[in-house]
């Protein structure tokens, strides 16, 4: 029950849902899952097995029936392949396909071969009769490191290969363990996909920037920054924005859910966020360059431009820095202004 409460909280559900989750875990038939691996580093699986609320073991033993997973299954070779085909046959239209990694399309898919065939074929076979597809991590969602320039294998995210199934993207390199198990818990409890944002990510975990809930945010607002590694500001835990922290442009739950049972997250350990849950984060300049041109929708302007625009809107006379502090409000106003202009 304890983890049901924590899971309910993590999913943004009220305490009334706790018995519902517990009931679902105790009574519903386990959902068959096929978990395939393409070009990847397995960090998603590593993250998944660390889930504390719910425990990964409870997910695997009580919620899902993990019928195929090359990283965790006992069988190998022909036996493993047979297990996958058998699951597809038995649960046509009723199993969930979880994809870790992505298919390379160059050279007819020869850069990733499993069971003697290109991975892209295995992916298509497994997806054909799936109820829904979960794209685990940055690889499956966006392409990740192998798709960084010059993308020598033409690594391609899952939604560009599988176009006729509902796909849930759970980006991050890796995604947070509790986010992974939280998505599965939601699907089992409510028999539907969680609410997705425009990019196909579960809104409950990806609707806020790391920056919005960062415990170092007051230092950003107060203009207290780490200027170089090992300076006094670094020792005092000041904001890492000037050291290249990508928190202001990264949508993820790290600053609230945190990692390893809520122990910490990168910024808490003194290093900036590298933005691993964002599309193409490998090719946005150095991880140590200050974010100067924010390319996402709604934040197209850099901090100074946002500041200036906001100063204009609210009647001027406000120092750009103070305006940066009111970044969120400023963006809202800037966007309003832009849409007004468009209408005019």
């Amino acid at each position: 029950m304890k983890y049901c409460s924590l899971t309910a909280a993590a999913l943004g559900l009220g305490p009334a849902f706790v018995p519902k989750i517990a009931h679902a875990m105790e009574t519903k038939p386990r959902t068959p899952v096929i978990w395939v691996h393409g070009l990847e580093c397995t960090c998603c699986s590593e993250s998944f097995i660390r889930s504390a609320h719910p425990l990964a073991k409870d997910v695997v033993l009580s919620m899902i029936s993990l019928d195929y997973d090359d990283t965790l299954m006992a069988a190998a070779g022909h036996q493993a392949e047979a297990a996958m085909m058998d699951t597809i046959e038995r649960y046509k239209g009723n199993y969930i396909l979880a994809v870790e990694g992505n298919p390379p399309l160059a050279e007819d898919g020869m850069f990733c071969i499993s069971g003697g065939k290109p991975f892209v074929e295995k992916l298509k076979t497994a997806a054909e009769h799936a109820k829904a597809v979960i794209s685990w991590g940055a690889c499956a969602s966006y392409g990740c490191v192998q798709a960084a320039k010059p993308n020598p294998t033409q690594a391609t995210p899952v939604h560009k290969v599988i176009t006729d199934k509902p796909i849930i993207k759970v980006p991050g390199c890796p995604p947070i363990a509790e986010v992974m198990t939280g998505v599965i818990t939601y699907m089992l409890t409510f028999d539907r996909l969680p609410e997705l944002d425009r990019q196909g990510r579960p809104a409950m975990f990806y609707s806020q920037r790391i920056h919005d809930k960062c415990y170092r945010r007051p230092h950003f607002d107060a203009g207290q920054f780490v200027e170089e590694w090992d300076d006094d500001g670094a020792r005092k835990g000041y904001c890492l924005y000037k050291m290249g922290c990508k928190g202001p442009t990264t949508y993820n739950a790290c600053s609230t859910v945190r990692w390893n049972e809520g122990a910490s997250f990168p910024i808490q350990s003194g290093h900036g966020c590298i933005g691993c849950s964002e599309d193409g984060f490998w090719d946005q300049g150095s991880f140590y360059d200050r974010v100067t041109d924010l390319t996402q929708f709604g934040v197209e302007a850099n901090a100074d431009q946002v500041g200036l625009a906001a100063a204009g809107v609210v009647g001027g006379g406000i120092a750009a820095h103070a305006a940066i502090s009111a970044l969120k409000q400023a963006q809202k106003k800037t966007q309003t202004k832009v849409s007004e202009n468009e209408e005019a």
Partner: protein
Amino acid sequence: MAIQTPNGYTLDNTTKRVVIDPVTRIEGHMRCEVNVDENNMITNAVSTGTMWRGLEVILKGRDPRDAWAFTERICGVCTGTHALTSVRAIEDALGITIPDIANSIRNIMQLNLQIHDHIVHFYHLHALDWVNPVNALRADPKATSELQQAVSPSHPLSSPPAISAMFRTG
């Protein structure tokens, strides 16, 4: 008939051929192929990594400060080791020496990773090669308790009732 691979290995199908593809419970993708003779002895073995992402190509021309993050993605199971090695390689190339305390912190990181990796590797990966969990649940709790107490007598969960409870909850 024998086939020569580009990197100098010989695949042959003159005797009984056993192919395991995919090899499971590893990071990445692998195929193993062996030939066995009439006494079931392996006479030839070839293993192949069947995935290539080209991280070496992707790393070219990047900011050296970022290299650790790319190389770390070689493997998500032994991540930190690749990152630390990459940082060391960059420092070596640029002639940077680090203070003793930094070296100690890195050693702590590496040893932590080693301990955690042993647990993951044993319980999630290779244990299934010699443990059948379904049979294990039918084991005799008393005998298991005796074995446990012989190894670590002061373990708080080594009594027969504690072992039985463990079997019940799986």
